Each structure stands twice: as structure tokens, then as C-alpha cells.
């Protein structure tokens, strides 16, 4: 059977995810899992009928402690990432997430067509996030914000520190803690769904494109098609981006 190759790529190693982004990512993944697990427990604790005295046990206490510690890490990590969106390389830049022009939506449509609906057409080749991924991370960041606001809003009355107290207006706006807690809880589900789809898509891209997507968030390097890299550099050059050539 004769095979017709559309194109054969020359791959170039590109240092897409800088160390701070990777550290941020895995720290975030870790605390997110911790927050979801402890959040679930807080919302619906298991009943362990025990004959021990309450004073010997602190199950919910620990769950909450972990939740709050993780929450602080999550929050500062998130703040750090926002900062890095202004000083990091182009793949970390805030413009990757917020639609700044028509091309952004065009690319989203492209990705939707090829990757999600799997229609026939020209493969989309991006270097950092593709526009759809970036756009979804944008929502993820908004959800991070919501979760921080509602979380610290709830936490404000339990804390004497000024930082959580900064958020005491949140319950006032939503009409009290009941509503804040509900929003906090619903938003958790956004993250659960996000993680499932997100991890799947990472593997998907690796499988379909073979560019080392999965490991890229560990080592930072991706295998990028030469044309794609050139095009990317032409449209928005960032000389700081390392490649195997410069190395």
C-alpha cells in the first residue's frame, strides 16, 4: 500500500515552559488536589462512629488545616503566576490567555474543528498553548479568582490576620456565607471537570502530535516543527526563547 505523506517535519527542541511556570504548575496541581480532597471532606465528611473521646481526634480539624494551608499556597502561587504573566517568556504571557484580536478566535475555531470535532483539515501547529487551551486557562484563572475570593471571604471571619479580612466584603455582596459557600462548592466542580479534560488533552496531543507534550511540563522542552517555530517567531518574536540551536 502506497502511503502519501503530506509533509515531513523537521523538529526543533524549544524551551517553552520556563522553570517558574513548571514549578507553578506542579505546585498548583498538588495543592489543587489537596483542596479538592479536603474540600470534599469538609462538605460531606465520612461518619466514623468512634468510641474515642473527641479530644483524641481531630479529623475534620486536620482536613480544614490542610485546606487552609493549601489555600494559602494556592493563593500566593496564583498571584505569582499572574506576575509571571507580565515578565515571563511569550508562552507565559497574559496575551496567551486573553483574546486580543480576531486571529485568537480564528485559532480557537481551528482547534475546535481539528482537535475536538475532529473534522478534516490542516493540523493546527502552535508552540505554546493553542488559543483554545489558552482561552480555557483564562476561565481557569477566573475560577481561581472566584475560589480565592469565596474561600478567603469565608475564611475572613475565622481569622484575625489582615489578609483574609480584606475579603470580608465578599459575603456582604453575595448576601451571606450560605451563598458564598455554595459558589465555592460549585466552583470546585469546575476544577474537577477541568482536570479530567485537561489531563486527557495533554495525553491526546502527545499521542496525536508526538511533540513531547506531557514531558514538556516537566523538563520545559517541546519538539516543535521548524515551520511552526519560524512562523511563531515571525508573528511575535521573543528572543529569550531558547531552542536547541542556540544551545
Amino acid at each position: 500500500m502506497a502511503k502519501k505523506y503530506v509533509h515531513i517535519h523537521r523538529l526543533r527542541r524549544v524551551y517553552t515552559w520556563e522553570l517558574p511556570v513548571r514549578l507553578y504548575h506542579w505546585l498548583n496541581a498538588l495543592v489543587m488536589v489537596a483542596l479538592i480532597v479536603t474540600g470534599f471532606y469538609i462538605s460531606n465528611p465520612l461518619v466514623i462512629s468512634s468510641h474515642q473521646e473527641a479530644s483524641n481526634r481531630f479529623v475534620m480539624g486536620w482536613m480544614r488545616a490542610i485546606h487552609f494551608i493549601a489555600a494559602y499556597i494556592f493563593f500566593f502561587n496564583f498571584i505569582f503566576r499572574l506576575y509571571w504573566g507580565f515578565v515571563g517568556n511569550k508562552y507565559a504571557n497574559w496575551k496567551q490567555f486573553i483574546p486580543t484580536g480576531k486571529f485568537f478566535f480564528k485559532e480557537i475555531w481551528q482547534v475546535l474543528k481539528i482537535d475536538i470535532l475532529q473534522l478534516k483539515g490542516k493540523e493546527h501547529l502552535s508552540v505554546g498553548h493553542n488559543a483554545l487551551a489558552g482561552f480555557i486557562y483564562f476561565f481557569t484563572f477566573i475560577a481561581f479568582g472566584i475560589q480565592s475570593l469565596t474561600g478567603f471571604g469565608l475564611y475572613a471571619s475565622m481569622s484575625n490576620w489582615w489578609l483574609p479580612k480584606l475579603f470580608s466584603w465578599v459575603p456582604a455582596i453575595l448576601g451571606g456565607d450560605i451563598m458564598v459557600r455554595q459558589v465555592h462548592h460549585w466552583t470546585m466542580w469546575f476544577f474537577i471537570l477541568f482536570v479530567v479534560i485537561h489531563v486527557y488533552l495533554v495525553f491526546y496531543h502527545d499521542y496525536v502530535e508526538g511533540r513531547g507534550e506531557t514531558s514538556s511540563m516537566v523538563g520545559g522542552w517541546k519538539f516543535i516543527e521548524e515551520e511552526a517555530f519560524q512562523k511563531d517567531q515571525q508573528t511575535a518574536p521573543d528572543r529569550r526563547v531558547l531552542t536547541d540551536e542556540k544551545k
Partner: protein
Amino acid sequence: MSQPLTYYDEMKNKGYSRRDFVKFATMMAAFMGLERSAVGQIAKSMASKPRIPVIWLHFQECTCCSESFIRSSHPIVADILLDQISLDYTETLMAASGFQAEEAMQHTMNKYKGEYILCVEGSVPVEADGVYCMIGGKTSMQILEEAAAGAKAVIAWGSCACNGCVQAAKPNPTAATPIHKLVKGKPIIKVPGCPPIGEVMAGVIVHLVTFDRIPQLDALGRPKAFYSKRVHDTCYRRPFFDAGLYVESFDDENAKKGYCLYKVGCKGPVTYNACGVTKWNGGTSFPIQSGHGCIGCSEENYWDNGRLYERASAFAGFGIEATADVVGGIALAATGAGVLGHAVMTNIRKKDNIHMLEDEGKKEEKELDH
């Protein structure tokens, strides 16, 4: 008619001396964080003031706020009514009815313009031009507007006045509206609860009378003194909560042991009230102490934010069965199925591409071998 009695007169009548009076004023100044020089002023203002006139309006309500008020044990209500304020209008207790009652209110509104405290119990229905609550042929909207105009400050008693309470629960057929949405430009003290604790109500009045100022309010307009802590933070069952020991079902072994009521729907963790500390009925008990979870009666929209016996929040628009986790679980299953479907589709639709990549790899491998 003779001159109204002043605080000084009151104290004199009770057998206190002028010296006692000044001492009291000094103490009060310290309490209020004022300079020593202000003592004279306080003493003077107290020595020349009549009892604070109060108009207490009743709209869409069940009157349990009034009922709760008369249950205050410190101070007892008789002392408040006879010595501290002049309750010139309240439909529940006043002797006069009809024309005479309305006249008493008018009299206070005119004579003490800008000085009287307006208390409101109940919400105001604004649907159908307000005909769902009428008193003396006027709507509650009209009465509130008139009475608020000359008030020095407004106290919104109970959840009805603060957030509409039951009658504002979905579908709120009469458009029951809380006071702060209707009265503008006046200080409003919200004292939520269904009802508020009697001693808390009395405490707010006493604060106004003795310190001659509005208590410190939180972001939602409630006096911090009584509403800055969650019931959960002052609940004596909290060690069981922290330990992870919960009542599973009413009257089970754990209930008899007094474990935490979180899993049978306690709203203490989201409810700001003084119940755990002040307790009810002169410190006799409070809901949780008597085995039932807090229902969140001092919180906004507490009737529409989840059912009494479920912890998890109901998901609006999905029927009463659907809690966030049920909806979330379904979404998760759907996502899983979607992902699976997508993966299968990928292997069909993108077979060529994937094979191509594999071939490409093999080819390159070969090239390298050479």
C-alpha cells in the same frame, strides 16, 4: 402638661446623687473612648434629654420579633418600656386603637422630628402598589415613607425587615421587600434572626439609649457585637465537628451523645448570630443544644439556600433533589464518557496522522541507523 423627665431625673428618682450621675457619665465617656472633657457634655446631654421616643411599625410579619423582645431577661422589658424609651406606637402593646393610635404616632412624628427611633418589624410588599399590607387605609409603603422621613435612625427587626424572611422566599408572590431597599439616607441597623434573640434586641436599644449612638455595624449592616461570629465558632459541639464525630440521623446513638449536627443539615457554619454565646430565653438553650441543627434563621435568603436537613447545597433550577454534587457527579460521568468517546474517535479519524507519525519515526530511525 409637665416637662418630660430626663435621665438625670430618672436617676434622682431611683435615689442616685448628682455625684453618682457624673460618675456614670464619666464611665460612659471612657466606654465610648472619649476625652475627659466630653464628660461634662455627656452629663449635660443626659441631664436634659427626655426618654427616646420610639415608633415601632408592623408590616408583613408574624409578630414573633415583638414576642422575642418581651422575653428579654436583661434588661427586662418592663424596665425598657417604663424607664429607657417611650414606645409611643406599637400595634402589639399600645392601649389606643384606630384613630387614637394613628394620632399618637403623628404626635411623636411631629413633636420629635429627627429625634425618634423608627423600628420596623416585617417586610413591605411592593407588588400591586402595596395593597398586600394596609393599615388604616394606607399601604405599608406609604406609612414607612412617612415615618422614616423624620426618624433619627431605623432599626430593622428580624429577618422579615432585614431580608424578607418567609414571605420573600420563592416565588415571593407579594414582592416582600426588606427595609434597607426602601429607606434611603437614614442609618439602618439590621438585627436579623427569626426572631432575633430577645436580649440582643434589648441590647441594641440599650446601646442606643446609653451611648446615644449607633452600635458598630459589619459589612452587612448588623451590630458587630452580636453578629460577628458564626454560630459554628461558638458552638459547644465544635470539638465533635473538629474530631469528625457526627450525628447521622436524629435520635441515633451519636445524637444521644451530643455529636455535631453538621451532617443532618446544621447551618451553623454559615450563620452569624449570638446563639452559641447569649443563647435563648435567658440562657436556657439554643437550637443546637436541643438537638436540632441551626436553620440559619439570621441569614439572607435562608429559605431558598438549601433544605433544612441537607448539608450540600441545592442546585437552583434542578429540582429539590439535585445538590451540587449530584449535578457534579453527572457532569463528571458525562465528561468521562466524552473523553472516552473522543479517544475512540481519535483512533479512527486520526489514524492516518498517527500512522504517519509512527512511520516518520521509523524512517528517521532507519536514517540514523545508516
